[in-house]
Structure formats: structure tokens, C-alpha cells
């Protein structure tokens, strides 16, 4: 099981990713999209951290910044103790053999002009792996993700969505990484197929001892696959805790609203459930509200001037369950 006393595999500290907004012919910077605005978390070897939040809250950006597909605006990402931002080309290549990405869109993430075999063999070639029998290794990888050897000559468009997602996973696994960032890997799939992929990921983790950063907006799914869950809102983590904790006793009003908004496939009890319908939309990350960025939509009765004026920081004092809310203890007072 996960050993939390050891040094984390991934340490993220006050990570920020601000995209400049440019205007006009000369590209004057008129503001910034604060896509990720100072988040910190740790990820231990072998565990799965779920990252949830509404669309546009910065999940993908976090993932891409962690893997240095984007240069961080501020903050540090340490992988196995090494500062990812400071790596030179050589180290970066080594890092990329250990940390891989699985994308959301099963249609856009595969080069349509390369056959599956060519795609996998190219990776192996670039990293000098399986020099003697690349094709054999490619077939092995396919079988690892539950595809068959005869698929090796096919092209991406000849696969179904679920199969394509498996190809994406096979590609990520081809470099034998320790750590996978999964950016909504099943959102585009049907429920029945979704379960297949989730199971596959689960099996691989067991087998290969992988570490996952699992991004999703389906809370039920995240609960199912994650050891710990982090909830993001407008570029910040508002709550992070063990999966069962967060679902049984959510502390942040946003988490609670989010959980209550998830439709439950349980028609019998549907009228008894507490349902919190948030008003309005997620504000723009260019001009996030002052203080607690959730305060304009917050249904908490204790909402006050402090919420408007002061940014709540993630309270790390409580063992294993951190919340960024000024009123996290007064959990009772939420308008239904």
C-alpha cells in the first residue's frame, strides 16, 4: 500500500500558471488568465490523486504544467526530489521517460497518419528501447492494454473510442513510466466502455506500481478510483482529503454543492436528498473575485466580509483533510 512517510514522488508547491491576454496589433498584454493560481499538493508512489472541478478551473493546465508542457509562471514541481523546472534537455528526456500523459480526446490524441505499430515503434526508437524486437514489444504493449496483436497494423480511425483510449495508454506505457497524468481519460467514453478503461487502469496500477494523477469531472468516478481527492475551483485547490473523507464529510461549501449536484442513479430516494443548486456561473479566471473566489456563489449562511476580503488558505493543520474556507467548521449552515 501507499507509504506516506516516504518522500513523495511528486511535490507541487505554490504552482502558478498565468496566461497573458494580448490585444491589438502589437500584442499588448492587457491581463492574465489565472488558470492555476498557487496550488500545492504531494503525490506518493503508488497512489492515485483525483483532481476534480468544473470546466475551466485549471485541471488540465495543472497537469500540463506539472509535466512541463507549459513553463510554470511561478512555483516548484519536484519529481523524485528533482526540480522539474530546472531540468536541462537531457534530464527532461529522462523525466519524460518516467512521467507520461494520457489525453482526454481519444480522437485528437493519435496521429491519424501513423499506424499503431509505427506509432509505438517510433517511441521505442526515440528512447532506444527494445532495440532488437520493437515490433514484438509493440504487440506486447497492445496486449497489455487489452488489444490484440492483429491490431498492430491498423490506423487510429479504425478503432472505437474506448480502444483508442487504450492505445493512448499503451503509448504512454511504452516508455515504462512510473507516473501517469490522466487528463479526463474516460470522459469521452460511454459508461459501459468507461468501466472497461477504469478497470484497465486499475489493473495496470496494481501490476506496474504506477502512480496516477487522475483528472475528471465525474465525482462518482473519482471517488471510485482515487486514494485522495483534490477539489479545484478557479485555479485553486479548495479541499483535499482522502476519498472516503471527502465524500462522507465534505467541509468546503463548494465541495458540498458539487456533491449534491451530481445526479444519483437512485430514483427511489431522489426526493429525500439534500440538493444545493448553486446560482450563476463560474467567474472568469481573468478577473477572479476578491478574497475567497467562491464567495459570490457561496450558499453558506456564515458568508461575511472576511470571505470577500481575504483569501482563505488551505488549512493543513488537520490530519489528512485540508480545506480552504474561513468557515469550514460551521458546516451546518447551507441553504438547500
Amino acid at each position, binding site marked *: 500500500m501507499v507509504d506516506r512517510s516516504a518522500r513523495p514522488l511528486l511535490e507541487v508547491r505554490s504552482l502558478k500558471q498565468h496566461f497573458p491576454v494580448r490585444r491589438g496589433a502589437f500584442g499588448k498584454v492587457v491581463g492574465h488568465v489565472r488558470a492555476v493560481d498557487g496550488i500545492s499538493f504531494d503525490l506518493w508512489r503508488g497512489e492515485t490523486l483525483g483532481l476534480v472541478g468544473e470546466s475551466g478551473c485549471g485541471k488540465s493546465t495543472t497537469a500540463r504544467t506539472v509535466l512541463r508542457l507549459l513553463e510554470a509562471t511561478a512555483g516548484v514541481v519536484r519529481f523524485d526530489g528533482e526540480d522539474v523546472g530546472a531540468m536541462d534537455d537531457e534530464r*527532461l528526456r529522462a523525466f519524460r521517460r518516467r512521467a507520461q500523459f494520457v489525453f482526454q480526446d481519444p480522437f485528437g490524441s*493519435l*496521429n491519424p497518419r501513423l499506424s499503431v505499430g509505427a506509432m509505438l515503434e517510433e517511441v521505442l526508437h*526515440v528512447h532506444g528501447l527494445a532495440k532488437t524486437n520493437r515490433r514484438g514489444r509493440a504487440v506486447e504493449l497492445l496486449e497489455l492494454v487489452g488489444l490484440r496483436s492483429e491490431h498492430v497494423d491498423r490506423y487510429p480511425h479504425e478503432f472505437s473510442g474506448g480502444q483508442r483510449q487504450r492505445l493512448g495508454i499503451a503509448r504512454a506505457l511504452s*516508455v515504462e513510466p512510473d507516473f501517469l497524468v490522466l487528463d479526463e481519460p474516460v470522459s469521452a467514453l460511454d459508461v459501459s466502455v468507461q468501466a472497461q478503461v477504469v478497470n484497465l487502469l486499475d489493473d495496470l496500477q496494481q501490476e506496474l506500481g504506477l502512480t496516477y494523477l487522475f483528472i475528471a469531472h465525474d465525482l462518482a468516478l473519482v471517488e471510485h478510483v482515487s486514494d485522495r481527492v483534490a477539489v479545484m475551483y478557479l485555479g485553486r485547490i479548495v479541499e483535499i482529503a482522502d476519498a472516503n473523507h471527502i465524500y462522507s464529510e465534505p467541509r468546503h461549501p463548494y465541495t458540498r454543492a458539487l456533491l449534491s449536484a451530481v445526479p444519483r442513479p437512485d430514483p427511489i430516494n431522489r426526493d429525500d436528498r439534500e440538493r444545493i443548486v448553486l446560482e450563476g456561473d463560474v467567474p472568469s479566471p481573468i478577473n477572479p473575485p476578491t478574497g475567497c473566489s467562491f464567495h459570490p456563489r457561496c450558499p453558506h449562511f456564515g458568508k461575511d466580509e472576511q470571505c470577500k476580503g481575504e483569501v482563505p488558505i488551505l488549512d493543513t493543520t488537520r490530519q489528512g483533510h485540508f480545506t480552504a474556507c474561513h468557515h469550514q467548521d460551521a458546516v451546518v449552515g447551507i441553504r438547500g
Partner: protein
Amino acid sequence: MSDGFLVARRRWRVVSAALPGLPQLLTGRWGTGWTVLLTWLGCLWVLTARYERVIGALGGAWDQSLALVTLVVSLIVAWTWSWRDVSGSDRPLGIGVSQWDLAARAFSKNHTAVAGLIVIIALYLVALLTPLLAPYDPAFQGNLITERYVGLSTVHPLGTDNYARDVLSRLLYGARISLAIGFVAVSISVTIGTLLGAVAGFMGGIVDGLIMRFVDIVISFPRLVLLITIIGLFGSSIFMIVAVLGLTLWPGTARIVRGEVLSLREREFIQAATVLGYSKRRIILRHLIPNALGPVIVAATLGIGNTIVLEAGLSFLGLGVQPPTPSWGTMVAVGRDDLLGAWWLSTFPGLAIVFTVLAFNLVGDGLRDALDPRLRT
């Protein structure tokens, strides 16, 4: 696979060995059938009717040798194509079909485009075979008094021109010049355009800005001024015309490629390539350019047509290919003065241009539909 089918296959092979294209015609596949059959028969006709020239070409000038090689190659290609076609393919349907295959399939369903392609292939064949085909030397002047402006006749199927030269022969030789100008100029412009466009799109920032400003200048630049200067400074020659056309036509391609690269750059498979630790060079050459190539191929096809028309325009201004070299453009431009008297002088080269360009445009349109996965149904 049933035995009956294999027997049928063997039988067709025999037929196709004797007369390539016939099996296809008998099974109702007119396009392939006629193409193969006519190519075959045409080549045979050249072999027999132009027997001396074929012999002469054995040790002749480079263009004669090229014509000879073309003749032999087309014979072989026609024959093997028909053979392999009736032999069938062993690859199971629907497996390992690449995007190119899909495009080819979609294209082959587009009848007008296929017709265009056949015309183009035929034209290039004719152009290559011209030294064997043309009834006369294109520069040979007959008797100026008696053989000038002779209308259509069996001796001169398309009549003679103001120097009593054979229009048909000139038309055939003109095909070489016009098609070559189109092909070479477009090759130059597409190469430049693709490279600059890809670099601009991938690098972004200042490089992009500079390249695109340059593109703006070239697009708005009056080409004629450039032409006169260059022709004035270096003399007018086919080489110069090709160079000028090639060097001024690339901005269109550059813009297309840049746009395509910009959108591809955001695609997840390019990001995947980055995460997999691929070098920039590999990403550009193996992942970006092949995916951006579709529109370029379309632009190139359409570009060849446009260039042929442009060359005609230059000829009208007197800036075209040096006489007596026949290009279709010069033939139309020169013949236009006699439109009322000797209509055949400009009409035939004019129609040749129209149909060639039309063929290129049909193929281009067909390719556009076939190569764009969004338009493929």
C-alpha cells in the same frame, strides 16, 4: 476464396495479358478499362507508326531518349496494372487502411476528378512522347507563300500558322513547355511556401511576424514590375519565367501551411509527441508536415493550372516564353491577332489551356474533398 473465383481470375489474367484493360471493360469498369486500353493501344501505335523515330531515338538527344523510356515504361505499367488489377489484392478489406488509402478511395469515387486525373496523365504522357508523336519539327517553316495559314487538313490536322509551321506539332511541343512551366514553378513555390509556412507556424513570435510581413509584401507586390526588371536584367528565358513565377507564388501556400500548423500545434497528438520527448525536428517533419500536406497538395494542383494561365497572360504582354519555342501561352497570344482570319491558331492552344487547367482544377477539387477528413462521409 472459392475455386470458381480462382479460375475466373486465371482466365482474366490471360485476357489481360493479351489486351490489358479488356477484362475491366468487360466487367463494366469503364474508367480503368479505357485508360489502360487506350494507353496500351496508343503506345503500340507510336511503336509501329513512328517506327523510324523510335529506332532513331535509341541514340538520340536526351528528350528522344526520355520519350523512348516513357514509351516503354507506360507499356509495362499499363500491362502490369491490368494484370495486378484482375489478380486482386490479398489485403483484407478495412484493415490497415491509412488516411492516404482512404483519400484515394474517396477520390476514386469522384468521377469528374478521376476524369481530370486521366486527362492530366494523358497530357504528361503526350508531352513526354512528343518527340516520337509530333508529325513535324515545331520550328520547321513550310513554304511561306503557299503553306501559310492553311486551314485544317489531313496534312496539317490543326492547320498551319503565320510561318507555315504545323500547329499540331507546335501544340504538342507546347504541352511540354506549358506543363513543365506549371510543374516546376509550382514545385518551387510549394517548397518555399511549405517550409516558410511551417517554420512561421511552429516558431511563432518574431519569426512568424517577420515571415508573414514578408508574405504580405510579396502578395501586394506588382508582379509585372518584378518581371520586367528581371527580364530586363537577365534576359527573358523559360528559366527566368519559371523562377519569377515560382518566387512570387509561394505566399498562398505559406499562409495555408501556417494556418494548418497553427491548428495542428494545438492538437493533442503533437503535445503527446512532446511529452514523449521527441525532438522539434522530428515533430515538424514526421508529425506536423504530413498532416498539413493535404491542403498543400490541393493548392499545388490548383497552382499548376493557375500558372499555365499566368504564363499565357505574360505572353499576351509579350513577356512570355521566347519565340520560336512554342508554349500554349505564346501560341494563344500570337494567334489572337488572327482570330478572325485564322481562328485555329489561337483556338486550339486556347482550348488546350482551358481543358488542361480545367482538369487540374477538377483534380484539385476532388483532392480537396478526398483529403479533408471532415468532408469525407
